[in-house]
């Protein structure tokens, strides 16, 4: 039963915070907090691909966009109506909307995962930079398609998405992604991924099905990028294709690299830092992006292994514990 303790505590804490936080955080800080949660999901999910498996994906924004638009379209065509019908049948609105949000997130994630599979399967035989550039290309293609399809608003964007996501949902998803990533890292499957990252030829010679694992990591990463997109859509209630440019993918990669490839706590930490940093820099207005760029360069020069290397921050030692080391 111990296994259910942590999830239960997380759930209760999330519900409590969901009720209390909006009361004493001003709306701006609250929104930044939500962005932190979404970025944690994005960073940890990309870490599964880039950090765990050593693949080189730079198109995460494309999968996020697929999930965002997919889930928003579902909600606006079916979800809202079904939720209304459920409320008419005397279900509490929280439940009805929650159920439909969940459905839309799963669909958005599913759509992104399908794209992940389609991109991943043929292109994972490409090496390093070639794979990178294909994922980049995929992200751009998705964006151009969105720009040109009127049904999803085209360049004007897609307004009027119900604001169903809140603190609870955003951080529930983040917690789930972190939990799954931790379980994966400490399992034989995670070890197979690390082995592929460290030496693909040796991994294969020991019976690791490298193609299957690379595709699986890719699909899993895309799925959660899609879910993060869905949350984004249902929190801001408005989507604009210019959110999902190459720059967004870069932002997420910077989180993974800065955190330390393969380090889950590192990704979380870096997602927090790199979300807050540009916000904190708002004070310097025009110099904001210049400073952000400079800090990125300096951080990479001074800490090329990222904040955490491949280690995890652990409560027990509060020092580094090696990834996958036995207890």
């Amino acid at each position, binding site marked *: 039963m111990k296994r259910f303790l942590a999830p239960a505590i997380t759930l209760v804490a999330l519900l409590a915070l969901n009720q209390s936080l909006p009361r004493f955080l001003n709306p701006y800080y609250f929104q930044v907090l939500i962005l932190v949660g979404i970025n944690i999901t994005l960073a940890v999910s990309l870490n599964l691909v*880039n950090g765990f498996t050593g693949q*080189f994906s730079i198109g995460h924004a494309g999968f996020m966009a697929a999930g965002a638009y997919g889930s928003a379209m579902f909600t606006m065509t079916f979800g809202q109506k079904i939720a209304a019908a459920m409320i008419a049948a005397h279900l509490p609105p929280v439940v009805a909307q929650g159920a439909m949000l969940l459905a839309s997130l799963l669909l958005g994630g599913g759509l992104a995962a399908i794209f992940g599979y389609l991109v991943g399967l*043929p*292109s994972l*035989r*490409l*090496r*390093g*930079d*070639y794979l*990178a*550039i*294909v994922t*980049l*290309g*995929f992200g*751009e*293609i998705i964006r*151009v*398609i969105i*720009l*040109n399809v009127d049904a999803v608003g085209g360049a004007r964007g897609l307004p009027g998405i119900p604001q169903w996501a809140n603190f609870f949902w955003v951080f529930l998803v983040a917690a789930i992604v972190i939990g799954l990533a931790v379980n994966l890292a400490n399992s034989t499957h995670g070890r197979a991924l690390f082995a592929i990252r460290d030496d693909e*030829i040796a991994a294969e010679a020991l019976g690791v099905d490298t193609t299957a694992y690379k595709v699986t990591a890719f699909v899993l990463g895309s799925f959660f990028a899609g879910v993060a997109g869905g949350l984004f859509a249902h929190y801001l209630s408005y989507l604009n294709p210019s959110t999902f440019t*190459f720059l967004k993918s*870069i932002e997420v*990669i*910077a989180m993974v*690299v*800065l955190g330390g*490839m393969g380090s889950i706590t590192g990704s979380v930490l870096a997602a927090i830092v790199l979300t807050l940093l540009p916000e904190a820099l708002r004070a310097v207005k*025009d*110099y904001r*992006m*210049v400073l*952000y*760029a*400079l800090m*990125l*360069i300096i951080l*990479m*020069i001074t800490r*090329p*292994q*990222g904040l955490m290397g491949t280690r995890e921050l652990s409560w027990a030692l509060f020092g580094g514990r090696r990834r996958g080391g036995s207890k």
Partner: protein
Amino acid sequence: MSTFLQQLVNGVTWGSVYALIALGYTMVYGILRLINFAHGDIYMLGAFIGLYASRWFNAAKDPSPVKALLVLLTSMLLSALIGMIIERLAYKPVRKSPRLSALITAIGVSLLLENGGALVFGEDQKFFPQLIPQKTIALMAGVSISNQQLIVLVVSIVLMFGLRMFVLHTRTGKAMQAVSHSHMAASLMGISVDRIITFTFMIGSSLAAAAGVLVALQSPKIEPYMGIMPGLKAFVAAVLGGIGNIPGAVVGGLVMGIAEVMVTGYLSPTYRDAIAFVLLIVILLVRPAGIFGKAVTEKV
């Protein structure tokens, strides 16, 4: 038929610009295995330096081909210098770091140039002076080329040919080949690897700057973010040709330029930006190492 030929002329001209930018990507990649994401921004800087140079030479009010040439050379020279500084300050310290960290550094430099450019030059569009007034030259019935396009073509060809001669027939060029083969072996042969790397950045940067000035001659609106898309596409062009391969970059650039112009002409201009990437994916699926790239089997 004549529209097709006209498109082909436009495509080749546009493609030669991509080729110039792609060369810098490919040379740096060949030597450092680094995707120099800031390369597209050097192209932007090249255009802006050209703008300031033409003000300096008073070329806007009193245009002449000699001044145009001076503007081009000034821009290439200063950009080479900037390329050198970037390499020394930002890339050299991460040369031994994990590849992704180096990539993030390059992206940081790119962001720095774009946003620094916005600060220094202003975010709004600037107008590049008409250094050479436009004339249209008829080639055959229904097909023409502007004198500016012709200049773009001729300058690109001269630069590319010059680069080829340089790489194949000079000591430094041969040293560049050696370094791209193996840093270790090159340094054992007494080649100063650091110097060659810096030099490669300088050449690549000056070619990108040339591309920037050439484009500004034709379509005179320039702004600090103008390098992002051409940069990405030129990189795709380099990959198409087989990255690290100099003739490959030229062919890749031409394929890219022609494909884009054709898509704009025959399909829809809105899908123009996607075509580069569709092309890329299709070609890589057929030839995983690019058109001219050799598939290497890793020795075990």
